[in-house]
């Protein structure tokens, strides 16, 4: 099958949806050139460096029947527009009693690993998981990037698309033609019987290579990629843990109140799954520090195969 990079897959989703639906509008301080060329500056709009204004404008557009995609660049720039995201876009459907729809996609990049220091290396999806009214996608492969982004554009709600910046050039199979990946459906990236590893974004790939390594030791990992954080496929996660009896959650973001905390909690609170738990849960996350600049320190805080493997051994009591 054809291979595309993560970035190409995202662009293809946009181009196809922009062809399909004339109500789609793109806003960004630097819109992608191919999109601008094909759809022109009315629909593909270069904005000033005014995130609150253009995020809010997306909400206004959506309320008037358009289907905007607002690209904020890096996730950290959401913080200058947080009110427009969490108090406006997220709550407006509910506060107005469902009388209008707000189909919006907010694209941002996340992730550390490129020595961009504390402000530019943040993965703040869990902050937005605490805000009902937003949906959240977090793809780990070009296939999911395209399929989830298409679903996000077609969805009638505000959807945050968190795209890992270290994966832009990662290649993967993407079929020709139209397909979607539904929001709320986890993917079992690898089946296994001993330990469930729920991993997010780039960590899916780390988990998969740990699974390869540990196979040699006779340890069988089941790797689950939630793919969307809201809605979160609790059933798939619980089913896997009920089967293996052991859970390691791997996320590049800080542990405290992160997505990993939620995943641990939803397993620990389910009587059925809990009754199958054979060991305490492990979180493999960044420690609670801002991401440092210098490579040795940065490498130290980002979860890696060594830490994942250690956690797996830990829950197996080895």
């Amino acid at each position: 099958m054809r291979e595309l990079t993560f970035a190409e897959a995202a662009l293809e989703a946009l181009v196809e949806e922009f062809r399909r639906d004339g109500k789609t509008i793109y806003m960004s301080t630097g819109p992608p050139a191919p999109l601008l060329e094909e759809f022109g500056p009315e629909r593909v709009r270069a904005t000033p460096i005014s995130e609150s204004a253009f995020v809010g404008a997306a909400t206004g557009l959506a309320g008037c029947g358009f289907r905007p995609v607002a690209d904020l660049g890096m996730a950290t720039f959401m913080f200058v527009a947080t009110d427009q995201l969490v108090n406006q876009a997220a709550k407006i459907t509910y506060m107005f009693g469902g009388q209008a729809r707000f189909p919006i996609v907010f694209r941002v990049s996340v992730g550390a690993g490129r020595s961009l220091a504390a402000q530019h290396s943040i993965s703040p999806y869990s902050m937005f998981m605490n805000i009902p009214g937003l949906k959240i996608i977090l793809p780990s492969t070009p296939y999911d990037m395209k399929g989830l982004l298409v679903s996000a554009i077609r969805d009638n709600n505000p959807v945050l698309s968190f795209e890992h910046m270290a994966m832009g050039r990662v290649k993967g199979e993407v079929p020709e033609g139209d397909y979607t990946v539904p929001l709320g459906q986890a993917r079992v990236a690898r089946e296994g019987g001993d330990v469930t590893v729920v991993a997010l974004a780039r960590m899916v790939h780390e988990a998969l290579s740990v699974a390869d390594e540990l196979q040699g030791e006779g340890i069988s990992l089941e790797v689950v990629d939630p793919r969307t954080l809201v809605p979160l496929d609790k059933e798939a996660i619980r089913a896997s843990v009920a089967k293996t009896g052991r859970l390691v959650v791997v996320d590049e973001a800080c542990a405290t109140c992160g997505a990993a905390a939620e995943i641990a909690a939803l397993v620990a609170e389910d009587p059925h799954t809990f009754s199958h738990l054979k060991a305490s849960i492990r979180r493999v996350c960044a420690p609670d520090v801002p991401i440092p600049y210098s490579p040795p320190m940065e490498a130290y805080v980002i979860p890696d195969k060594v830490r994942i493997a250690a956690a797996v051994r830990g829950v197996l009591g080895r």
Partner: protein
Amino acid sequence: MPLDREELVHLYQQMVTIRRFEERTSEEFQGRAIPGIVHSYIGQEAVAVGVCAGLRRDDRIVSNHRGHGHCIAKGADLKRMMAELYGRKTGYCQGKGGSMHIADFGIGMLGANGIVGAGLPISVGAALAAKLEGGDRVVVCFFGDGATQEGTFHESMNLASIWKLPIIFACENNLYGSTVSLREAVPVTDVASRAAAYAMPGVVVDGNDVLEVRRAAAEAVARARGGAGPTLLEFKTYRWRGHTEFRAIPDNRPPEEVETWKQRCPIGRVEQVLLQEDILTRHQMDEIDGRVRSLVEEAVSFALASPLPAPEDALSDVYSP
């Protein structure tokens, strides 16, 4: 822009409607029939009514926390408004929003907002929609003097200007934003003077003179419809009541100031014109008042007769299907 007698009577009636609606709302709030928080529009009636006089039904407005007047002037249903304030299932938002979040997309009222300055970016998006649609629809964004202190004011004015959007920024300068006196909060006398920073016209308007408001707004609307872009209108006005009907926030305004502004009652001023020009007699005005009072009464009865939402209704409408 001639104004016929009938239209003036209509504007008068709208202003009286807002006044009576708000009086009743305060009463009901004090009597604890209306929960939450209510910001009264009394004293500012001429702004909403004069601005909306120049709008079509398919034009759109964006409102703020002090939004009842905007709703009524744009043609909202008093019953569904009152039902929303009472937290009833029949309210505009099915009881989910309350005073600070009334919206009626059917008449182009895109919603009140509890966050100061937050409506501005949304209104810019609505204006962009109007432009992209290709018709000649316009958008009015209502906001207070307090909102001009937020960064969203700056970003939104700028964006609307560079995109030449069909929007009217209607700043209701009632001199205070809660406890904050505009005079102490900004170093300029007129909010309108800030329009220059966005290369758009800025006009100071007597916000208690509905005819002046109507004239200035109509001009700005004509500009916007004609594709000439946004205008900032600053309406000097005053709220008669405390910042909210909830008494916890002290009213730090000098009582004489409040009195002076009450002398400039926007409704009283139209009444003078109506009398002077022999358009209405005192008696006819009383009749209008009577009709308005029964409309408000009906709205209250409607609200009271309406069911409360079921507790579990809280779980719906988080997402659209």
